[in-house]
């Protein structure tokens, strides 16, 4: 299995690699290039890297101007400031016209850790998901991040890739096919399905292991693409297993849990529950402690699966 790596680090590497073969790629950042890892691209291509300083709204609209001029801008900063701070600019200057601005926002979710609730986006997917024309990817690991960067370049429209701060274990392989429109089954199982994404995949796989020891056969599915959502796979697996849990590092409102609920409504009578952040803000702490306290680690997922099956 490949080495552990943060998705933001994989992004920095792939952005540089793609920059070398595609001159239309330009990069915008807002004083966080050493955290988002766009610094690698900036170093090799200083004339194609634009630091806008701490001015996210201007950065997004300037990127829109670049996209209108035939370029493919990648826009990076912390997810909280790149999504919520510049949201109306994203809506009206980018999504509304459907131009190809690629948002790769890092440090999403509770896993920002000690910086606390002001910096932990629990709503970014919800925000992007309501925008027509938007594609949303949540990478499972470093390998998938790189595939997503390439897919984002091929998509003729705006894309959001949600990257995170901590190192992630690899749950896919180099030769695992990445179809942006198809969810990927990571572990087969017949009793209950765990639909998950991002950093919570690893927690879900651990949960499935523990459930197996108790005789519960859980299937784990990587829903790397939140929009457009693979409704077909969601319904098919839900109907096969009869019970579905969604597990994500995001509010249960508006993210994978909501997308799944919308897909299943009227098409499946499977039991259903959402593991995620239960309509509250984050706080300071280590990522592991926060995952536990907010019930999105393996313990929380195991408990939610058992509760659902007992209902």
């Amino acid at each position: 299995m490949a080495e552990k790596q943060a998705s933001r680090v994989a992004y920095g590497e792939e952005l540089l690699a793609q920059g070398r073969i595609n001159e239309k790629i330009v990069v915008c950042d807002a004083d966080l290039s050493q955290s988002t890892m766009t610094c690698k691209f900036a170093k090799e291509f200083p004339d194609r890297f634009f630091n806008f300083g701490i001015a996210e709204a201007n950065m997004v609209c300037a990127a829109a101007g670049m996209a209108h001029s035939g370029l493919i801008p990648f826009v990076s900063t912390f997810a909280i400031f790149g999504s919520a701070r510049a949201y109306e600019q994203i809506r009206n200057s980018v999504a509304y016209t459907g131009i190809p601005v690629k948002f790769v926002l890092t440090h999403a979710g509770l896993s920002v850790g000690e910086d606390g609730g002001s910096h932990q986006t629990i709503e970014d997917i919800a925000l992007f998901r309501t925008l027509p024309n938007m594609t949303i990817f949540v990478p499972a690991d470093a390998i998938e991040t790189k595939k997503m960067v390439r897919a984002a370049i091929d998509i003729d429209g705006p894309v959001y890739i949600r990257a995170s701060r901590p190192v992630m274990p690899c749950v896919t392989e180099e030769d695992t096919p990445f179809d942006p429109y198809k969810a990927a089954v990571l572990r087969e199982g017949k009793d209950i399905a765990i639909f998950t994404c991002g950093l919570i995949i690893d927690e879900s796989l651990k949960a499935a292991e523990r459930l197996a020891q108790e005789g519960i056969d859980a299937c784990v599915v990587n829903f790397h693409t939140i929009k457009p959502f693979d409704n077909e796979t969601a319904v098919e697996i839900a109907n096969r297993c009869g019970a579905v849990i969604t597990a994500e590092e995001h509010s249960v409102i508006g993210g994978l849990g909501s997308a799944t609920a919308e897909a299943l409504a009227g098409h499946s009578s499977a039991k259903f529950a959402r593991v995620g952040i239960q309509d509250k803000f984050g706080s300071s702490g280590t990522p592991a402690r926060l995952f536990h306290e907010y019930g999105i680690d393996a313990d929380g997922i195991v408990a939610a699966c058992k509760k659902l099956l007992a209902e």
Partner: protein
Amino acid sequence: MDLAMQQQKAVQLRADIIKMLYLAKSGHPGGSLSSLEMMMALYYNVMKVDPKNPKWEDRDRFVLSKGHSCPALYAILADLGYFPREDLWHLRQYGCQLQGHPDCKSTPGVDVNSGSLGQGISIAGGMAIAAKYLKKDYQVYTIIGDGECQEGLVWEAAMSAAHYKLDNFTVMLDHNHLQIDGDNDQVMGLGDIMKKFEAFGFTCYKVEDGNSIEAVVEALRKPHNGKPKFICCETVKGHGVSYMENVAGWHGKAPNEAEYLQAMKELGVEIDG
């Protein structure tokens, strides 16, 4: 407390900041150390506050717009007795009332949440407008960063402060010339910041040594002339710890054990467990 004693106290508070960050293993030393004396000038000399009654209606208000520098604020609030000094050693831990960025719901003495740059100065302006409307004579103070001045919101706030003639409002700039990706001038130059605030309708003062409490206090006592006031304080990022001074890399990184011990040695402060 006289000014000489305050300058002495600054050494102890600096040590508290370093210890806090060392124990938390994360956080922002550079901007905390550059703005410490600015906050001390306010809390020990100018502002009307009551640590026993943090929500006192007529208190002066302070908004740390560059919220990442809260370790300096926390050290001062603890020293003034808003909460036990012991709490400082749990900064950024799960369940601690001292969050990574200021949170008024959990920390006594913190008036407003901040951490998302640009918003604090706007909120502070709103508090000054409210004071006028409510016919209260409290003052509102805010500290912004130079990198923070790149946010459009700062200028929207500045425009409205002049428009509403907020002569109860003081904006202090921690002009340490650094942000995360490097020098302000390298990332996104501010130009002549004094002239800009002047053009936006502020009465402007410059403090050549913003790490001198006395110099900052002097500027804070100067007149508003019927306008909002802007004080540009020239400071040193990482002030007081040799290896942190003027190094952008110390914006958001905690010292390791060796660095912690060296800082304490330089400050001449005993390690108190």
